[in-house]
């Protein structure tokens, strides 16, 4: 009977492998992808232990639970399997060790169960996930009892048979679940870490730029699950339905019909016809759709699996990606689906049609004259680079320049740069929109047209670096223009201001006692990892800084990105109102911002609320006070 447990393990592994292979056949429906297998495999332990752990550890309970249950499960199973070797299988000491491992697994299973019973948190899915602790417990307790009996030398007693039977039910159940149940995440997750579509993420580099789309491809964007590359399909299968993305999603919080977890599950369910029903939180306030039962059908549409409202509610804030322990790339999926809707079906959000057409025709989303971009600086006598050919700093103004309110920020920035003696110039009427908006709305063709034109324009001038106050422009210029041949040093204005202060070229005054909370723009904090410079500037002007519940790379979106204000999908509340609520909770008198979009969104909140001031405005105010 010493072989019974190892045999069970081998049957489990065989079953799990068979189930995984059945599933893999579906992944292979996806488009081809280039995967660096060797480096991926070598990096797997590090990716798992460092990168995944970094995310998992944000939830201390889950982290402990997972370490115990997964560690116990793997160790116990491997050890039990090794007992096939007569030298080990015959050792009672060995069985004691195996029993210990199963004991740990059992403890972990109890932790899993304790999270779900008597009541599970809302973000966790029910359904098959509710059975998981029982399967785990059965396998672990059975294994524990069996190994103990073997350790005590009590082979082939009815008790041992009963223990093995219990373990077999649990173990085979877990193995069976590899195709469609919770345990899929283990197999798919491991493979996904090897074949991740953005390996750059693990090299402590920020790999957040959208990949350019081949405009000559037979089909633009993803219409059905089969249009995603196979390793993306694999990545969606690795979702453990932990709901961390759902908790982080601003659209979900606002009651808009988007839930990133559900979205990923819809992509998964669209692959096969027999996926078990989804048992997590729905898309809030979603309109009824009538999903087709056929696999690989069209994903988006009022009559498809995902209503277009869901697709267009996303602000592309990447909060979901940041929180996902399985390193799933939700935003890439959303943009891919949007590209298909916009470019193949001409169905961008209703209000986007004119905006996109103005971007194509006039290089500007509002159809305003490019020469009017510098109107905000009337009287400031902005130097235009075409008149000089070169400058140390090229100031990229961005779309905010057309906005009355944001013009104040830019004027403050211009004054500060003048005070510090920075040699700068603007492109003036040669500056087009970066195309960020078009791209996030799925209009890659217009984006590429604008990107090429901007790269061409910038290529004509000599400058040391580009400074911009617009994180969206910064992200485009710094990260997304590279493939079009634009490689520059791109600096956010808050970083420049900090640098100028530290070099002694700006002498900040002291805004003593002014309590300020800083709102991180998604495209600066999460997309570009810059969270410190603005905070340091605030500290240097003597503001008493308080943090909101969500800040830094885990900050919450203002609701302004990804074209969401244009899609304007209805919800229960507005995202900026929620964010402003978090600012109000801190009791701060001022919300410091560093982005034209955040400024506009937060300024749009009505009622009694803190003032909204850009870092540049606050710095200038401190200097005026100090002077």
């Amino acid at each position, binding site marked *: 009977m010493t072989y019974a447990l190892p045999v069970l393990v081998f049957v489990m592994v065989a079953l799990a492998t068979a189930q995984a292979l059945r599933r893999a056949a579906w992944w292979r429906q996806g488009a081809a992808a280039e995967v660096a297998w060797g480096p991926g495999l070598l990096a797997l332990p590090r990716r798992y232990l460092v990168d995944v752990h970094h995310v998992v550890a944000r939830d201390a309970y889950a982290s402990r639970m997972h370490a115990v249950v997964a560690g116990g499960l793997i160790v116990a199973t491997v050890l039990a399997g090794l007992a096939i070797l007569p030298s080990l299988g015959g050792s009672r000491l060995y069985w004691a060790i195996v029993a210990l491992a199963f004991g740990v697994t059992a403890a972990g299973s109890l932790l899993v169960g304790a999270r779900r019973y008597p009541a599970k948190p809302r973000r966790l899915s029910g359904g098959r996930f509710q059975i998981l602790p029982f399967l785990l417990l059965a396998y672990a307790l059975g294994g524990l009892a069996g190994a103990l009996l073997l350790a005590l030398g009590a082979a082939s007693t009815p008790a041992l048979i009963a223990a093995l039977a219990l373990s077999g039910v649990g173990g085979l159940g877990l193995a069976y679940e590899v195709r469609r149940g919770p345990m899929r995440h283990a197999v798919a997750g491991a493979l996904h870490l090897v074949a991740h579509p953005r390996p750059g993420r693990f090299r402590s580099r920020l790999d957040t730029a959208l990949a350019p789309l081949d405009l000559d491809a037979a089909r633009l964007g993803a219409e059905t699950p089969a249009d995603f590359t196979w390793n993306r399909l694999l990545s969606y299968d690795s979702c453990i339905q932990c709901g961390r993305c759902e908790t982080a999603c601003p659209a979900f919080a606002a009651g808009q019909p988007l839930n990133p977890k559900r979205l990923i599950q819809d992509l998964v369910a669209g692959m096969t016809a027999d996926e078990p029903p989804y048992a997590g939180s729905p898309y809030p306030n979603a309109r009824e759709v009538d999903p087709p039962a056929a696999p690989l059908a069209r994903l988006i549409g009022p009559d498809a699996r995902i209503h277009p409202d869901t697709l267009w509610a996303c602000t592309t804030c990447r909060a979901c990606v940041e929180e996902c322990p399985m390193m799933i790339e939700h935003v890439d999926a959303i943009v891919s689906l949007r590209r298909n809707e916009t470019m193949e079906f001409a169905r961008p959000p209703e*209000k986007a049609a004119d905006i996109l057409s103005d971007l194509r025709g006039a290089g500007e989303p509002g159809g305003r004259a490019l020469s009017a971009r510098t109107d905000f600086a009337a009287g400031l006598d902005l130097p235009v680079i075409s008149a000089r050919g070169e400058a140390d700093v090229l100031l990229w103004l961005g779309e905010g320049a057309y*906005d*009355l*309110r944001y013009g104040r920020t830019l004027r403050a920035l211009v004054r500060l740069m003048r005070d510090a003696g920075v040699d700068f110039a603007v492109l003036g009427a040669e500056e087009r929109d970066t195309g960020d908006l078009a791209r996030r709305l799925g209009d890659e063709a217009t984006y590429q047209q604008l990107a090429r034109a901007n790269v061409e324009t910038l290529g004509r001038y000599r400058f040391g670096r580009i400074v911009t106050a617009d994180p969206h422009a910064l992200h485009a210029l710094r990260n997304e223009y590279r493939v079009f041949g634009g490689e520059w040093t791109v600096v956010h204005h808050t970083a420049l201001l900090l640098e100028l202060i530290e070099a002694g070229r700006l002498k900040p005054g002291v805004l003593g006692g002014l309590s300020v909370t800083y709102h991180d723009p998604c495209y600066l904090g999460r997309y570009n990892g810059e969270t410190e410079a603005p905070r340091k500037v605030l500290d240097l002007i003597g503001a008493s800084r308080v943090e909101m519940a969500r800040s830094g790379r885990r900050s919450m979106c203002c609701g302004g990105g990804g074209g969401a*204000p*244009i899609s*304007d999908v*209805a919800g229960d509340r*507005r995202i900026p109102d929620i964010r402003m609520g978090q600012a109000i909770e801190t009791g701060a008198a001022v919300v410091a911002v560093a982005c034209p979009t955040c400024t*506009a969104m937060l*300024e*749009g909140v*009505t009622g009694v609320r803190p003032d909204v001031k850009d870092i540049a405005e606050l710095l200038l105010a401190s200097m005026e006070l100090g002077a």
Partner: protein
Amino acid sequence: MTRVRRDPRADRRAAQIASLDRPRFDLAGRAADGGPGRPRRNPRTEFAALRVTGAARPRFDRQHRGEGAVAQVVSAASTPNVIVVDAPAFLVAVVPDAPGGRLTQHDRQLFGAARTLAGAHGAVAALVAGEIEGLGAIGADRVAALASTQNYAPDVTAAALASAFAALSPRHLLFPETPDGGDLARRLALLTGEPLFPDVEQLSATSVSRAARGKRVAQRAAPARLMTLGADVVAPYSGPAREGRSEPLPTAEVSAPAITDARRIPADPATTPLTVADFVVSAGNGVTDIEAFRRLAEALGATPGASRVLCDAGLMPRASQVGASGSVLTATCYLALGVAGAPQHLQGVAGCEHVVAVNTDLHAAMIERAGLAIVQDAQLVMPALIAALESERAS
């Protein structure tokens, strides 16, 4: 300012004798003017014509000096204040829209333009289908009746106009640049082969100009024979009444109209899209009594709008949102009740000619933008407005 400036060039042109290979002028004769020699002025009649009626003390309107009063003006014995032009040198004809027989403001402006072009020697002729009252008062010296069509039949009307054009041979024929006027003008241009100078934006006796190429250039020319006049570019005629003598027209042949049925659907302010509505009354966060607001919009015959706050709150439909992320208006008048005037909101109102604001906050941006600002609670003003409109209607 009382004296009419003479345009020597126009005079010369008027005196030119037609159909000679070399230009020749009949400077003494002026057969067309009806009398030999220079036109005589009668300062007394002229002055009388300038007198403002109804004023207690004699007052004279020199600004609108009734240009026609210079020559050949004989006050009709029976109606002393009507200007009569007996034998005009030429005609300037206008084709007012007059929907439903009522003259629009644009139509009145058409007469103002025609008067400018007619100058001292010409007469203004109105070409109208059906009975329209008060054409003399707004500046018609002549009224020619076109055969009226039962239904909307622009092809038939254009044919009738073409025959009137041939019969009267006016120096200019003016249309308002409206859907109907603009359509007739273009039909006539094709029927007569006469070039059209459309959408005049600026007009004087000697030149007209219009915008072209996406408002990048202004084209200037001498007044053409066929022109359409933009809205609100020329003041209506406001001199003393004119005779409005009826001018006979030969009957035109009527062909079968190509349009077999036409029905006018009046604008319903409640459903007119905000972007084209002429009068919008809008509610902001300061309006709590939405029911009263709806009744007010109806009583005023205005299209209801709202600020985003109310749309977000679901109190008003999303389609009624005014502003950057809502509708951008082209209304003549915007009546804003309890709207703060956030920049995103004001973007939607930028094109409105008149803004009236009711707000409790004297320093609200909307108050600043308004031509008439009422610092008062909207909840008090709305019922007062409804009551005032109702009592007017009742009386």
